[in-house]
């Protein structure tokens, strides 16, 4: 549900547990819940992925089109994001409901992917034609907001891993491009530099990852980081209303890169097992 109300007693129980590094579902502060990933489930998309983690599920679908590049960036492809929360998640999201949330999500994705090296491999003819990838994120079930960001980024990365674009050749005779006639002549994208998001949530005196809804309801605020596979921070943002002290955040930095690398490795392993199947 979108909002969960907890009593002071419940919050106190939860926070004291976390101070002892013990969460209500038995995890420690830096444990993540199990993630199920599924690839290649939408025949109408060039790449797709479904991710599920307990009570949150997200589908990402990639579609492609050929467009002319922006004049300032002739050698770079384009990526468009669109996010939508299905009414299946909660009656609140019927119609245009949940738009503030999806706009925030899309903005964060756009900022993180602005200078991604992925854009370089989307060039067809420099200055003339580039691929434009439209990535649609459909949120079917919404757990805690903080963990939603992480899962969306994993879904997008997995969908991009799954993406196969047809190879395009430049034909000098007709001064135009030709798409290969062989349906198996496909190009895979280099997704190693695609960032993933790590959200850390301050509950009591500790930072945790992947909070449940109950934990989120008793949290102070969350910090959202977008990190690539080399540990470079691409974008960050604070979520929620509370305020955070600066010293613990500084101490947090090595832990974040560790968590991010772990997630990157997890996606690589999962996706490799899909392609080998």
């Amino acid at each position, binding site marked *: 549900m979108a909002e969960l109300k907890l009593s002071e007693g419940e919050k106190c129980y939860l926070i004291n547990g976390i101070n002892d590094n013990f969460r209500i579902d038995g995890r420690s502060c830096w444990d993540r819940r199990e993630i199920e990933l599924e690839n290649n489930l939408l025949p109408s998309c060039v790449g797709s992925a479904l991710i599920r983690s307990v009570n949150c599920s997200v589908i990402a679908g990639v579609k492609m089109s050929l467009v002319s590049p922006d004049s300032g960036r002739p050698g770079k492809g384009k990526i468009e994001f669109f996010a939508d929360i299905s*009414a*299946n998640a909660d009656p609140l999201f*019927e119609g245009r409901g949940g738009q503030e949330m999806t706009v925030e999500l899309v903005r964060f994705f756009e900022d993180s992917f602005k200078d991604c090296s992925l854009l370089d491999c989307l060039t067809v003819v420099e200055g003339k034609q580039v691929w434009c990838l439209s990535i649609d994120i459909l949120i079917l079930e919404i757990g805690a907001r903080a963990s939603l960001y992480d899962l969306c980024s994993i879904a997008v990365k997995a969908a991009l891993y799954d993406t196969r674009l047809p190879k395009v050749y430049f034909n000098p005779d007709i001064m135009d491009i030709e798409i290969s006639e062989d349906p198996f002549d496909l190009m895979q994208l280099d997704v190693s530099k695609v960032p993933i998001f790590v959200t850390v949530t301050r509950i009591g005196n500790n930072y945790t990852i992947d909070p449940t809804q109950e934990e989120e309801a008793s949290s102070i605020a969350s910090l959202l980081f977008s990190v690539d596979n080399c540990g470079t921070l691409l974008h960050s943002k604070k979520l929620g209303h509370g305020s955070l002290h600066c010293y613990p955040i500084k101490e947090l930095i090595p832990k974040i890169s560790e968590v991010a690398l772990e997630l990157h490795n997890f996606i690589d392993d999962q996706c490799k097992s899909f392609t080998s199947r």
Partner: protein
Amino acid sequence: MESRILLESTSVKTPFRIDGRKPHEVRSLTCRLGVFQQADGSSYVKLGNTQVLATVYGPHDTRGKSNPEKSIINCKFRLSTFSKSTRRNLHRDIRSIEISNNLTQVFDSAILTELYPHSQIDIYLEVVQSDGSDYAACINAASLAIIDAGIPIKDVVCACSAGFIDNQPITDINAVEESSNGTPILTIGMLPKDKQILSMESSGGIHLDNLNDVMDAAIEGCKSVLFIMKQTILNHIQELKD
């Protein structure tokens, strides 16, 4: 040259369809109940390549007007942006609004609404992948989700589409057959036990003499769909028991 929708086969008398089916064959149907945790009832229906997710919330308090005699049914149908081969824009889709209204009417008459005065039942349908017969798949999915939610319903509402190509009625139309020029499509949603038709919607011209055959094809389709739906429900209940 016009591509042919029905392919003549050399060995058998009956023609084959573009996806290799016989005229009266329904695509493979997979159903699952209780796919979401948060909703009161949910289901997943995969009819060929058409995939629908349905959730039911309620009966709960109404938002706005309430009816002192029965509960209000609120159906919302939506095609996702990536459901078809070209990317779609979500809002202002007239066909979606029409299907939502049709579904509301179907389930308003199928659910025993008089048991829940002053309340509302929400049914949400999300078409993740569209490959023809979306409306029929949605009726089936919604009906399963309502059963999963434990809301009293007269019968398992089942639906199937049928068309008429080359003087031959065909059951369960796919997207290629749907988009080929002038194919008449008839979708029937019914209460199978009483043989009551809750929804009958057709588009495309068809001679009245042929309507009988097409209706029979759709009703036959409904029966085979119902068989699988009932099987799924029984399996689900068995799982809950164990």
